């Protein structure tokens, strides 16, 4: 047990308490039904588990496909050291989605059906299909790390040769399902508040996934710097900050020109519940991080860059929670507030994510060894 840097006693204790409580939630759901642990209802069939665990979770894992595209498609080799941590984070994220679905789905033993149903009208079919196939692609992309650990040279060579096709497949699947998550809401214009319904929801979900993927790499670098002593160089972080700022700009352009084109800007000016949450999302999660990023880049202040990235993540989460919950409240005529067990289960998934990453970092070569750059990213055997 490593006891350096921070106090594992406190975090471990907290983790096991949340884990125990989360298991109780699982047990309740599978003995008494969803109604016993959630505030879900016929008016709000989707709550925190879909809004956060799925919509945000998949978006937060976007760093995985982004970084493979940067390193293997655009061939910017200097980003190679973050390929493995980003892919590992993404893979753990998708595995946690599956776990969350075991709680949220009514009949999860039919989870395989979308793979073969081929309903060409169903956005959910596209999401389910792409997420499943992409999880396999992620596993294949990461398998080099396992082969390396086991010392299977031949498997490593085969895995390395498959890298480019795997990366292209993974990037296409990711673009499709990241945007399809927003596409889920395209069919319900009549149910959603005008501040959030948009024909451009798929594009907004894709662009925000990219900006949050970039922000998450900065955040992860900071955390892994504290916990494992591995962090990215200042130049790489700065480049990530520039890219993040560009994506936030594109996002703001699409978001506001769409609002203006639909004549929804006056709704943002009303003082009310929806407009308040809208400005929280846009002010704290879009305008503020963009300003902070500009200052951070101008002054080469990495702490500020880290803070701005955290706000980008927050703004992303607020947008997705607003789309999946706030936007529906007025047409439902009621509010949805998650039940405590829903929050506990979500906390458990977050905690499991951290724990899984720690284990992976301990037993696999997720981070580069010093002066070992030739071996990074693709499990090169030589």
């Amino acid at each position, binding site marked *: 047990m490593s006891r350096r840097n921070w106090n594992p006693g406190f975090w471990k204790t907290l983790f096991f308490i949340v884990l125990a409580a989360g298991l109780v939630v699982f047990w309740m759901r*599978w*003995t*008494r*039904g*969803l*109604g*016993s642990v959630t505030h*879900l*209802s*016929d*008016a709000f*069939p*989707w709550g925190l588990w879909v809004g956060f665990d799925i919509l945000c979770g998949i978006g937060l894992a976007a760093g995985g496909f982004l970084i493979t*595209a940067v390193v*293997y*498609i*655009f*061939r*910017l*080799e200097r980003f190679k050291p973050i390929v493995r941590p980003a892919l590992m984070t993404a893979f753990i994220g998708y595995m946690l989605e599956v776990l969350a679905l075991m709680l949220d*789905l*009514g*009949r*999860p033993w*039919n*989870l395989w*059906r*979308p793979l073969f*149903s081929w*309903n*060409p*009208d*169903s*956005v*959910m*079919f*596209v*999401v*389910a299909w792409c997420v499943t196939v992409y999880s396999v692609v992620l596993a294949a992309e990461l398998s080099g790390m396992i082969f390396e650990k086991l010392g299977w040279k031949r498997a490593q060579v085969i895995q390395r040769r498959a890298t*480019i096709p795997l990366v*292209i*497949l993974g*990037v*296409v699947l990711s*673009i*499709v399902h990241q945007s399809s998550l927003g*596409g*889920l809401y*395209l*069919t*319900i*214009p*009549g*149910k959603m508040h005008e501040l959030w319904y948009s024909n451009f929801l*798929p594009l907004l979900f894709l662009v925000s996934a990219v900006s949050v993927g970039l922000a998450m790499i900065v955040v992860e670098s900071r955390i892994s710097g504290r916990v494992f002593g591995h962090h990215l160089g200042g130049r790489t972080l700065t480049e990530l900050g520039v890219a993040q700022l560009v994506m936030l700009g594109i996002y703001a352009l699409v978001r506001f020109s769409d609002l203006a084109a639909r004549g929804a800007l006056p709704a943002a000016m009303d003082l009310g519940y929806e407009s308040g949450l809208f400005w929280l999302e846009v002010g704290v999660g879009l305008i503020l991080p963009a300003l902070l990023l500009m200052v951070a880049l101008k002054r080469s202040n990495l702490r500020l860059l880290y803070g701005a990235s955290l706000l980008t993540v927050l703004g992303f989460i607020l947008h997705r929670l607003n789309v999946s919950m706030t936007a529906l409240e007025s047409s439902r005529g009621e509010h949805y507030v998650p039940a405590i067990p829903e929050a506990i289960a979500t906390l458990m998934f977050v905690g499991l994510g951290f724990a899984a990453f720690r284990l992976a970092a301990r037993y696999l070569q997720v981070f580069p060894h010093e002066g070992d750059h030739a071996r990074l990213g693709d499990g090169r055997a030589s």
Partner: protein
Amino acid sequence: MKTMGMLIDVNMCGGCHECMAACMKKQGFEGDPEQVTKLSATARTILEHAGDYNVRKFCRHCIDPACVGACPAKALVRTDYGAVKYDSDRCMGCRYCMISCPYDIPRYEWDEVAPKIQKCDMCWDRIEAGGIPACAEACPAGATLFGEREELLAEARTRIQDAPEEYLDYIYGEHDNGGYAILMIGPKEIAAVRGGIDFADSSPAAIARGVLKQLPGFAVVGAAALFGIYWFAGRRNRVMAEKARARTDDRLPKPPKGGKESNHVTA
């Protein structure tokens, strides 16, 4: 089989709740129909009130149903005669149908360990056995008629023409959102619960269909573009490496060979 449907004539309904009682009996749901005011996992049809009128609320059996379009597992399907039915053995319980239905009809068994969707299925089992839906059979007033949709439409038009002062000149379900199998006519007051008459003529399912149709093409073009970028990036890296080597070679004592190579590459 031809497209079947039902015609609800609100002017004929006396509010006896027999349709609800018959439905609950067939489904094995407990309770007093007169006390049930909301659709639920144990109430597939209810009566809403618009002034003194009773307006039935249950699945409209859309011709292009949003729920069928939404279902990733094909647990919801529309039969060739128009009933939208649900197969719990295929359902994975994602509840996207509940999100997608423009009329908020599907209900969920929130207290069940393996919950199912509950909604009117037009008594497809009775129809396929040659019978008619339980509610239509139970109605003593002729306010719920079962038959071929075309014939019901003609009947609805006749009724409106014969008594224009008693009816809103509109057949709910003829075209709205692509049309329903369940048609409704009645007095002007029912617009309060059924909404205005400015529906779109195509279903929300068509929105998703239009977007998803472009996906395969997008995926192919996207993959090709990525491969193109990969190739160009490789070339750029090679050229840059050669240039860097050329610069280094220039400073070396024997330049000719390096110079030749670099000319060859950049030419």
